[in-house]
């Protein structure tokens, strides 16, 4: 996705900037002046349809590329948009403008209602379910002739009018449709390059995200998937409504499975995850269809229609096989635009990074605005931050954790050790809500965590890192941390989409907050780099910074020292002490004893899911039970001689 970031003052060469500027502006310019040329009526009509499909495709691209959900049912929303206009006019004589609004409301509600259950499905299940919904929709349209006109449909639907000015000609509709395209495009662009887009990318596994890691950062994944689904429904609906007023006659067959498939084809041709791709895809596919309709009768004698379908299909398959990333990716490589891809909001580009750094990060006004605790939350009064009471977790027949009880006090550093398979990571999963206990209870800040979901627990101030990192690989270092700041960003979807001042302010605040966290761990100089380019130690620090962005009261660290050298482990120990200074309690799973000995106030030893010993580090190290847990029993001579 291209970025209108024009303030990359880091780079001294101006040609890539200029090149991008030219590319970006040339297209809208062409679009604006097109109708002024003579003899373009046919082209205008085609462009109107490209625009209509484009609006729907933008929504689908958002759904597929950013939320990772596949839908073969956009025809439903397109149809609802069209029929809202049609039904209101035909039966009640209500102006199509109200029809459009009604369509939006109807689509949002249906998408909201359907979204929650359906988005629990993934991949092929979701595809099949949405396909089925499309079939159901068309059948319902056909079988309710009193309302929808049945198979013969509704019409004539009048063209839209503003006051007494009726949009009769193609030129009028051309501008109307493409202005709508522009509005949707800009809205989605803003969403994607803001906290919303970051949140989406954080859980979408094909763009380097991870659902559980995302939930651990207080992101309500289900809610976001639902929002995107609703947005895609609204896009398709508006497109459908406009289409109804343009073509004047609508019937069920326009909104069937083939429409949804065509839309999907457009998005995939252009490239999933690219808003430009959605529009380009719409253009290419519709143009291709026209070209085939013109060309084939020349080449083949007889009815050409069936050959069109085959040729179309073959070309589509070829595109998918040769350019699986879509046309946009290929073009970007061709014009060498790829290297400057950055999804940041322009105000948070590397250039502004440096100016911020120079200006100093402290801003009393801003700090006053962002309190440590959000309204409704309180700092816990009791000295005990978390208690686990007789917690057990059963997987089928396997007792991973067995009646474990433990507590953490404010500001404590507690280490959990034990051999492989002892249940340590399961315990973490239970504490932060990824798993629910089979029995027993975990109490955080006086409230049981059992009814809470993972992101709700994170929201209340419990942060966690993972043994297998789970860095969001498709985002820069600072963007990773900004995902962690999610819970502080209060801007609404509307504000973010239209880049209202309140949203821009929030983004800046989050940016500075993130930069501060990076400075805390010492990574501020690499804020705009991609995490894969960093050494392991820096990656681990990034994860800590990301977790700290939640300003947690308890931080769970899962094997932070694995893979580090002894010197690095020492530095990590210092970092842990620094974190404790912030008032955060730390619960640590670790195998590297140097770290445990240095940092821990208390050590808990697990084996076979049970707590076998708890005490001071020095005592634990000498405890015979602990040694046996790790190294095994030393038995007497007789058994030795048996086995040799």
């Amino acid at each position: 996705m291209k970025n209108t970031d024009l303030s990359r003052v880091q780079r001294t060469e101006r040609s890539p900037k200029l090149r991008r500027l030219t590319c970006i502006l040339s297209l809208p310019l062409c679009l604006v002046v097109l109708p002024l040329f003579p003899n373009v009526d046919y082209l205008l009509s085609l462009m109107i349809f490209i625009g209509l499909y484009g609006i729907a495709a933008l929504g689908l691209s958002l759904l597929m590329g950013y939320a990772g959900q596949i839908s073969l049912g956009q025809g439903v929303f397109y149809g609802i948009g069209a029929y809202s206009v049609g039904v209101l006019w035909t039966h009640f004589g209500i102006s199509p403008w109200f029809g459009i609004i009604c369509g939006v409301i109807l689509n949002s509600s249906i998408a909201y209602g359907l979204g929650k259950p359906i988005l629990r499905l993934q991949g092929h299940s979701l595809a099949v379910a949405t396909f089925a919904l499309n079939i159901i929709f068309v059948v319902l349209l056909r079988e309710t002739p009193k309302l929808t006109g049945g198979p013969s449909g509704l019409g004539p639907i009048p063209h839209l009018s503003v006051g007494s000015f009726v949009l009769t000609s193609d030129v009028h509709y051309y501008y109307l449709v493409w202005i709508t395209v522009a509005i949707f495009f800009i809205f989605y662009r803003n969403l994607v390059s803001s906290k919303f887009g970051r949140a989406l990318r954080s859980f979408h596994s094909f763009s380097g995200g991870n659902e559980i890691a995302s939930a651990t950062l207080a992101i309500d994944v289900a809610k976001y998937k639902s929002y995107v689904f609703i947005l895609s429904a609204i896009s398709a609906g508006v497109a459908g409504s406009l289409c109804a007023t343009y073509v004047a006659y609508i019937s069920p067959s326009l909104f069937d499975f083939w429409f949804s498939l065509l839309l999907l084809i457009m998005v995939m041709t252009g490239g999933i995850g690219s808003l430009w791709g959605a529009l380009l895809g719409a253009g290419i596919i519709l143009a291709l269809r026209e070209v085939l309709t013109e060309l084939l009768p020349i080449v083949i004698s007889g009815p050409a229609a069936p050959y069109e379908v085959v040729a179309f299909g073959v070309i589509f398959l070829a595109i998918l096989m040769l350019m699986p990333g879509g046309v946009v990716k290929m073009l970007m490589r061709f014009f060498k635009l790829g290297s400057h891809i950055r999804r940041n909001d322009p105000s948070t580009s590397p250039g502004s990074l440096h100016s911020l750094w120079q200006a100093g990060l402290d801003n009393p006004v801003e700090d006053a605005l962002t309190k440590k605790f959000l309204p409704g939350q309180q700092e816990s009064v009791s000295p005990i931050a978390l208690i686990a009471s007789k917690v057990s977790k059963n997987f089928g027949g396997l007792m991973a954790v067995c009646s474990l009880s433990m507590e953490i006090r404010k500001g404590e550093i507690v280490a959990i050790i034990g051999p492989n398979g002892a249940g340590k990571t399961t315990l973490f999963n239970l504490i932060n809500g990824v798993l629910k206990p089979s029995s027993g209870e975990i109490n955080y800040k006086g409230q049981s965590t059992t009814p809470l979901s993972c992101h709700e627990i994170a929201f209340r101030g419990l942060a966690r890192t993972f043994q297998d990192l789970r860095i969001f690989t498709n985002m820069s270092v600072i963007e990773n941390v900004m995902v962690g700041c999610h819970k502080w960003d209060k801007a609404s979807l509307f504000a973010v989409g239209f880049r209202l001042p309140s949203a821009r302010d929030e983004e800046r605040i989050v940016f500075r907050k993130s930069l501060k966290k990076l400075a805390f761990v010492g990574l501020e100089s690499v804020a705009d780099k991609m995490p894969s380019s960093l050494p392991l130690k820096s990656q681990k620090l990034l994860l800590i910074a990301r977790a700290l962005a939640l300003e947690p009261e308890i931080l769970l660290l899962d094997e932070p020292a694995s893979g580090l050298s002894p010197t690095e482990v020492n530095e990590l120990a210092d970092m842990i002490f620094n974190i404790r200074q912030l008032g955060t309690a730390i619960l640590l799973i670790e195998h590297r004893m140097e770290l445990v000995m240095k940092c821990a106030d208390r050590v808990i030893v697990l084996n076979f899911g049970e707590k076998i010993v708890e005490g001071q580090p020095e005592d634990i190290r000498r405890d015979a039970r602990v040694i046996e847990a790790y190294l095994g029993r030393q038995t007497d001579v007789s058994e030795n001689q048996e086995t040799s």
Partner: protein
Amino acid sequence: MQDNLDMPILEMRDCSASYGNIRALENASLLIGSHEVVTLLGANGAGKSTLLNCISGLIPVTTGVMLFQGKPVLGIRPEERVRLGISLVPEEKNLFLSMTVENNILLGAYHRRMKGNAGILEQDRQEMFELFPILMQRRNMPACKLSGGEQQMLAIVRGLMASPTLLLLDEPSLGLAPLVADHVMAILQKLKARQISILLAEQNSWLALRNSDRGYVMETGRIVLEGNASTLMNNERILDAYLGGASKAVSGQGHVVVPLSEGSNGDKVRNLKPSPR
């Protein structure tokens, strides 16, 4: 028990491998002779699993040389290495959980199915059931219903059905009750008699060393110590590797480590210092 190192089954020289940014294995060199039992020791994250995965072909080795029975094997897919005689029993076992115990065992011999081997395969199966009678009892149960220990045994049997020359075991005693773990280890000795070489990665050092001929100790991706099992059992460095400097405290409390019979035969302890970072 003189080891036959003249014709090593496996030879690794300076092998390194990475996961993305992490150097999981660094310049590892080792030798395994025919019918030897060798143990890899080290704390979690030391690289033992990585090493085993590299030998079986699941993780690509970026530098170095690996020879199996004298022939280079790097670049050969895991499915092919099984045919050559390398069989890995992974830590997660990777059993076919929806299938019966019997089917899991049969599948273990998948690559041997073609050559009219039905008779031999049947014989092997019977042997397995004799070695592990519990599996015989549960032969028609789906693997997901077995206990942890039974699943581990099944995984080992499946690995053995491939009739390997080199059997790789990743944490075979993990999650097993001590008696069961002992039983599993005892089996290893019987296997040794059948000309199978075994390389196992174990956290449970003493149990492993008691049942092995030689061992290598790993720390953060490198092999730092190697030697005869008996010598290693007395070596304080191992305790350091796990519990960081607790060795003196332990000896102080009077736990005596009993060496295997002759002890000083062919003492070969090399302290390999890790290179400075």
